[in-house]
Every structure is written in C-alpha cells, then in structure tokens.
C-alpha cells in the first residue's frame, strides 16, 4: 500500500472511510451499510458469506472493473465502487421477480422450447439474467501485464500456522524462501520473503522445464509474479464447508470463516444472535469467543463433550442429531427451521445468522493441479495428498503440510517442523496423526435423510455460483446419470466462478449415498487450470515457456 493511511472511497456515490488493511466488506460492516449483491440466475439477494474469497456473494464493480470480491479488496483512495447485476439497482432489482415467480426454479434444460417464434426473446431474457458484472468500461493502454519474473529454490504457498512453523524451524537461509499468502498474515514470519494478498496457481509444466515448477502469482493489487521454483511447499490450509438446506444462500448464513472475517472488527461477529452448526473443536472455540451471541448449537451428528460443557456453562441450548431444514427470512435470515433426525419433531429458532462450523475441508486444488496422487479420507470426507516419508507428495519436489495435507490443530504445526527437519537432513520426527482415513462421513447419511424432508416451496441452492438447485441434482440422478463428472455437466454444478469449492464436496457425499458406492467411485471433478480466476491480462503477459 502506498500511503498506509485512512482512505475514502465512493460507495454507491456516497463517501465511505476505509482503514489501512481493511477489506471493503469489513469497512461496510463497520459503517453498518449492508452490501447486497444478486445471484446469477434467479437474482436472489446475496451478501458476503465466506469472507475468504471463495464464494460469489460479494462481487462489486470497482472503477468500471467487474466482479471484484469485496471481502478481499482493499480499496485505493478515491475509488468509485458500485454494486452490479441488479436492475435498476441491487436493492430494488426487477429481475429478482424471477425468483418468487419460479419457486421450483427455471428449467433451462427442458424449458423455453415453445413456441418457436419466441426463441430469440427467451434467449435475450435468459442472457440478461446471466453473467455478473458487465465487461470493463475501458481497457488499460497495454492490456497485457508483464509479471515480475522470479526464480527461487524454495517456494512456500500459504502463510498459516504450518508454514510459520516450517519457516521458523528451517532457520535462516540465504536467499530466504519466498512465501505467498492469499490474505494477510496475523503477524510477520521472519526468515521468509513474504508476499501478502497474493494467490498462487500452478501453470502447466513445460515438457522441457526439467524438475522445476512454474507458478503464476496474482496480487490483489493488480500485479503478478511468474515464479520458477525448484521445490514447493503447499501449506494452503483449509476452509469451513457449507451445508445444504433451503435458503442456505440467504444473507446471514456464514461458513465460520466468514463469521470471523466479516464483522465490523476482528473481534466482533457480523450478527447479533446466531445459530451455530456443528459439534467439534471449531464450535467449542466459537462458544469460547462469542457465547453471548449464540442462540443455539445444532449438530448434524452428535455433539462433542467440550461443546456440551461450554454450551451448558453459557446456557446455550444444544440440539444434537438435528436436520437444518431451512433458513427463513426476507432479505436476511430471521429464523431457522429444524427437525430432530429420524423423523422427530420440527421446530423453529429465531436468529439473525447461521454459522456453519461442522466441517473443515482442505484446499486440495493446487495439489490436484500439480498432479500429486490424492486419496480420499472418510474422516472429513475429502481428498488429501498421498504422503511419503518427509511429507513428500508423489510429485518430486512437491511437499504438503498443515490442514491441506490432513494435519489438524497441533498436528499442523508439527507437520511444518517435521518438513523442516526432513529438508535440512536432520532426524525426522515421526509424523503426527492425520485426519482419519476410514469411515463413511457422518454427513452422507445426513443428506440422504435431509432430501426427503426439505420444504417444497423454497429453493435449496446446491451450487451458489451458478444457482443450481438440489432438485436438479436429484433429477439428474433419477434419470440414471452417474458420477460427479456427468452430474457437473448435466446440472452445471461446480462450473461457476469458484469451480465447485463449496458444492462439489457436498455433491460427492450425496451422490455417494444415492448411488450406493463409496465417494472415490463417484469421483472428483478434474481441477482444470488455472482453478482460481486468473486475469487474461496477467496470462497474456506471461513470459513464453521457450524463453525460460
């Protein structure tokens, strides 16, 4: 940041103050000015949800550039920022009428086929509903952006606890390892050259490129780096999964990451009274921090002893083994509808938020992309790299530590230290425990049960990037289509802006239950590069592989 000071931007034409290091989403929360966006197909109201740049519900237009994520964006002084995808505005969007008019959804696969003369009209309307923002107002004088070229022996991707432990244990090195962090670090990591707010993607390796890795790193501020690295440590951590229920896309529903990132300040949550979903460590921690703001704890499965203890101390009711059927409310969540599992009673709890803290998932994209062999671990219901001794993946020179590799909590730190030992030739301590490999995920049975109980009149959005309904996934299955690859192509699930990060893990579990076969047989959608949206301008500026 050039000045590092307070800045003022124009948000929808009115001034808004933004503090140094503060995202636009947080600045808006602090100013108590809601950020409302619209979804792609039904123009449903959306508000920032994940807070970590993984969903599509905080897109805004900055200085005429479309689809900028407010939760990641730290505005420059004087910038004009607008909402997008609503007409005449996102607050009063006439296109949003399609949502209530078609409670069961618009069937674009089978619908709009008659009468023939209306085809062009249907196409115009559907095109108008689609897309988020409009193409940029103008083009930079040189639309290609030449990235900074870097070569390093050791690249660390991710700056969480495992990466920190790794760099600290590695000790001083010249030159220091290059470390890229998508967000901001909570405190500096001495011993590494750190680039914050920088997202890495693997580029396909040139056949002649030898053993090195090619990485494109995109900076939030608009720049880019093209990195050639001899060895790469993937320490990209994890994220809180979503959960499917009617209205799960409604403003006020947050994966726990979002509850942490989107409040008016770091310690304050973006809600008054929340229903928290889950029963493990993550919920216990939330109870520790915000007990007075938690209305109830709902467990899709059993609730752990620590959660039970803290909840009873704080007088928070617990509903273990409970289906979350629906989040109700107009613009924002006002209540949740619950049902005890196994056909038990249905009841309603008033709240202004739902926090999803029932399941942490690893970020497997980079590892898939780099070609590491991956294995399914039923404990969380996700894919992790197959690891050899010394935390090596099956790709020479590629290592994985922390949550992305299946090391949670304290094990995450230990995995970072163990890798440092392995790379410096010291005695490698025994590897800490990883996420359980065996066992069907609790959630597979949960979903199989949930589907029959969902309300009919409300939409259950399975893929929020593309507004794909759970009903459409069910239809695809009923017609006899099998496997996630075909389901993706049939419904469009997982093909949106964030390439299935939230919806695909859930879909795999549900399809596994429906198809009666283990999740790995249902498959995983191919991680097609660049996985994270990489601007055409930055790709156009890449040095040609021949020139390396």
């Amino acid at each position: 940041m050039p000045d590092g000071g307070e800045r003022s931007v124009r948000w929808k034409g009115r001034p808004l103050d933004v503090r140094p290091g503060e995202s636009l989403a947080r600045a808006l929360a602090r100013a108590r000015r809601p950020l409302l966006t619209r979804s792609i197909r039904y123009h449903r109201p959306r508000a920032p949800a994940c807070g970590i740049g993984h969903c599509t519900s905080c897109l805004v237009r900055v200085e005429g550039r479309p689809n900028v994520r407010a939760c990641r964006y730290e505005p420059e002084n004087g910038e004009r920022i607008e909402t997008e995808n609503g007409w005449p505005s996102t607050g009063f969007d006439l296109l949003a009428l399609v949502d209530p008019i078609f409670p069961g959804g618009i069937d674009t696969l089978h619908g709009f086929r008659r009468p023939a003369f209306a085809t062009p009209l249907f196409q115009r309307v559907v095109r108008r509903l689609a897309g988020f923002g409009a193409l940029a107002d103008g083009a930079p004088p040189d639309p290609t952006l030449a990235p900074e070229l870097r070569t390093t022996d050791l690249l660390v991707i991710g700056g969480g606890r495992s990466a920190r432990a790794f760099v600290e244990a590695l000790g001083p090195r010249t030159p220091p390892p290059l470390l890229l962090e998508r967000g901001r670090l909570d405190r500096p990591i001495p011993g590494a050259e750190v680039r914050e707010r920088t997202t890495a993607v693997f580029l396909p390796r040139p056949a002649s490129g030898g053993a090195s890795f090619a990485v494109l790193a995109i900076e939030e501020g608009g720049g880019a780096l093209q990195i050639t690295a001899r060895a790469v440590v993937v320490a990209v951590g994890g994220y809180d999964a979503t959960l499917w229920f009617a209205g799960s896309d409604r403003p006020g529903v947050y994966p726990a990451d979002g509850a942490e990132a989107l409040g008016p300040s770091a310690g304050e949550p973006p809600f008054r009274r929340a229903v928290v979903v889950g029963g493990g460590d993550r919920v216990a921690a939330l109870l520790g921090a915000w007990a007075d703001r938690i209305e109830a704890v709902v467990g899709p499965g059993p609730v752990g002893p620590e959660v039970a203890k803290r909840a009873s101390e704080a007088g928070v009711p617990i509903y273990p083994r409970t289906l979350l059927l629906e989040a109700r409310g107009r613009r924002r969540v006002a209540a949740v509808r619950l049902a005890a599992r196994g056909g038990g009673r249905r009841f309603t709890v008033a709240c202004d938020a739902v926090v999803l803290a029932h399941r942490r998932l690893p970020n497997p994209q980079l590892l898939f992309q780099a070609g590491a062999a991956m294995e399914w671990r039923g404990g969380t219901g996700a894919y992790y790299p197959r690891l050899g001794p010394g935390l090596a993946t099956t790709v020479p020179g590629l290592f994985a530590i922390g949550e992305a590799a299946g090391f949670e909590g304290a094990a995450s730190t230990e995995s970072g230290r163990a890798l440092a030992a392995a790379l410096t030739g010291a005695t490698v301590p025994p590897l800490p425990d990883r996420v359980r490999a065996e066992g069907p995920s609790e959630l597979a049975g949960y979903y199989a049960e949930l589907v029959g109980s969902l309300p009919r009149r409300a939409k259950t959005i399975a893929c929020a990037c593309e507004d794909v309904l759970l009903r459409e996934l069910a239809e695809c299955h009923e017609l006899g289509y099998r496997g996630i690859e075909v389901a993706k192509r049939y419904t469009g699930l997982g093909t949106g802006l964030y390439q299935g990060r939230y919806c695909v893990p859930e879909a795999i579990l549900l399809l596994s239950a429906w198809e009666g076969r283990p999740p790995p047989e249902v498959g995983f959608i191919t991680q097609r590069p660049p996985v994270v949206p990489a601007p055409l301008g930055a790709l156009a500026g890449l040095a040609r592989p021949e020139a390396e």
Partner: protein
Amino acid sequence: MSAPAKPRYRIVIVGGGIVGLFTSYHLAKAGAGPILVLERGFLSSGASGRNGGGVRQQWETRATIRLAREAVQEYRRFGREFGYNPWFRQGGYLFLAETRTEIARLHSVHETVRSEGLPSRELAPEEVREIAPAISPEGIVGGTFLDSDGTLYPFPVLWAVYEKARSLGVEVALGVEALGIVRDRGRVAGVATPSGTIGADVVVNAAGGWSAELSRRAGLPVENTPTRHEILATEPVKPCLDPMVIRLSDGLYVSQTMRGELVGGRSMPHAPGTEGGMSTSPEFLPSMARSLVRLIPRAASLGVLRAWSGYYDDTPDGLPVIGEDPRLPGFVHANGFGGHGFMLAPASTRRVAKAALGEAIDLDPGAFGPARFLDPDRRAVPEHLQPG
C-alpha cells in the same frame, strides 16, 4: 460400468459421443433391430463434452455447406422434437480478415456460400464494429458474416439424444472398451471387449479422436490423425458479444455462452497424437490470452476460470469419413469430423445410419466416402476453412 445385456446385436456402435449416439437414434427410429453403443469412458468424456458449440454454414466446399445447412434446420427444431433445449442461438459467425490475402480468401468462401442460397455478407471494418462493438478495430480490414450461423450448448443435445435413443430400445454400455473387431469369412462378425466377444453384423466406428486406433485394431490402416485442441472459459459477464468471432490470422475463435462466459481457443502447434492428455499445455494459456485481449482489450481484467483440451479427428482433406470400408464389409466409418462433428451431427449421422443398413446415401462419395483415401484418383476437393 454397465455390461451389454445380449450376446449379439445387429449393429454395434463404438463411441458414445454425439456421432455414435445420434447414429443409434436414427437406426432405432428406422427399426433396425438390436443396437448397442459401446463407450469406454463416461458419457460426454470425448470431444462431444469438450467443444465450443459453434454451428456454421460458411465453408469452402459445397458438400459441407449443404450438410451444415441441413443441420442448422435440424437444430432449430431440436428443442421441440427432443424435449431438451439446446439453446441454439443464431447470433451469426463473423470471420475477420487482417490482410488482402485473407480478404480474398473470405471473398471466395462468400461467393460459394451465396451461390448455395445462404445470405452471407461481406463487411467493411465499420460494419464489423456494428455487429461486435466490443472488438478492437485495430488491424481489421474486413470480414464476412452469416446471421443464421450460431452457437449451441452441447450437453442438452447429448442428454436428449441419449435418452431418446434409449427410449427407442438402444442399449448404451458405459465403461466398456472395444478392444478389437472380430472377422468371419472376410466380414465383420463382432467386437472384442474385456469381458468377451459381442456378436454384430455391422460395427460403426464413431470413436472420434480414437477412430484411427479402432480402425487399426480392425486391421485397417487409415489416414485419420488425432490432434489436440485447447479451449478456455472466462468468468461470466453480461452480454457483450453476439456472434461467434473467428480471426483467420491466428485461428482465434470466441463466443459468449448463454451463461455469459467467453469460450474459445486458437490454433496451436501441437504435434498429432493423443499423448497430451485432456489438460492444458504450457503454451496455451499465454498464447490464447494474448490473442483474446488483442481482440477484446476490455476483457483484460476478466478471469480465466478453466482451460481444457480435447481431440479433433482430422483427415488430410479436412472432410469427414462416412460410409462402409471397402476393405471390410460391415465396418462403417463415422469419423474424421475435425473441429466440426457436433454441428454436423444431426445431418451426417442420418447418412451413417443408412450406410450401416446397407442403403444408398445421398452424399458425394468422392467427398465423404472412405474409398477416396485408397485411390489417388478419387481424392476430394479439400476443405481448408478449419478454424472454429
């Protein structure tokens, strides 16, 4: 995996892409008897699930123009007949020229297309701007445009044809590979699979990029070659591009889907063969991004969501191969569709079905028949207008 139910079929079609499925549909509709489609991957795993959805009638060769014109009519009706909406949007195809030579080339295509009764137009640079205002005018000296060309969404077409064919009794075995062709007394007798031989009077080679491999497994050398083609999709934006745009100089093609993504590719110097897999090469993203921002500079800030590749089944003369192989009675070709098999499918497979039933077909055998590669005197007039 779904194993075939019967020990023998009248016709076995190898390849469950659009060509194989559409052929099976025409055959079942004609009451051809037990039909089996063998697909070694999942449905849509071949080129039919990886293409750009372009449909055009602007070609150099009359034979192709006629087939394409018929296919356009079929796709216009498709939604009403098949129950799925293909979202066939006739936004036109806009060819761009940047040199005099390219103008001359487009001019000659334009003359042929017009003489076939299609109202193609030659455009001055200002008219190009009117049709596609997002395009940078730099370097463009002219173009041609045919407004009844367009784009469709391939998946609903695949599902529709698959479901219709099955409802007419066609069996589709997924995850089953054709390992070889069994002969008896000089003609086709069946197909070898990992779980044994399946009897067949006729085998149709609709194996797309792997058709040459299958022909060779049948003991028939052919001139088809698979070539890898790459394609990408950007994040979805509001409507900004109506036609499919093709630039001759770098073979760039790009259109905007109904969902708002820009989807396209360009010519790349890939060596023939299927070794490249289905992923992205190191050269593609930078080359394609450079081509695309040169065409639409305002797209520079747009994110690329994904890139992937598939295989064209190319022939030396750029024309498909349709008909029975004279060297092996009962072995029918339905391949060599290059980058245009999807758009031609409704029309081309009608002829494949007839050939499989031993009926005469109304196509110029010189242009499409397999015999043209066996006899140097019967070489066809080639089709060179390949990009997009």
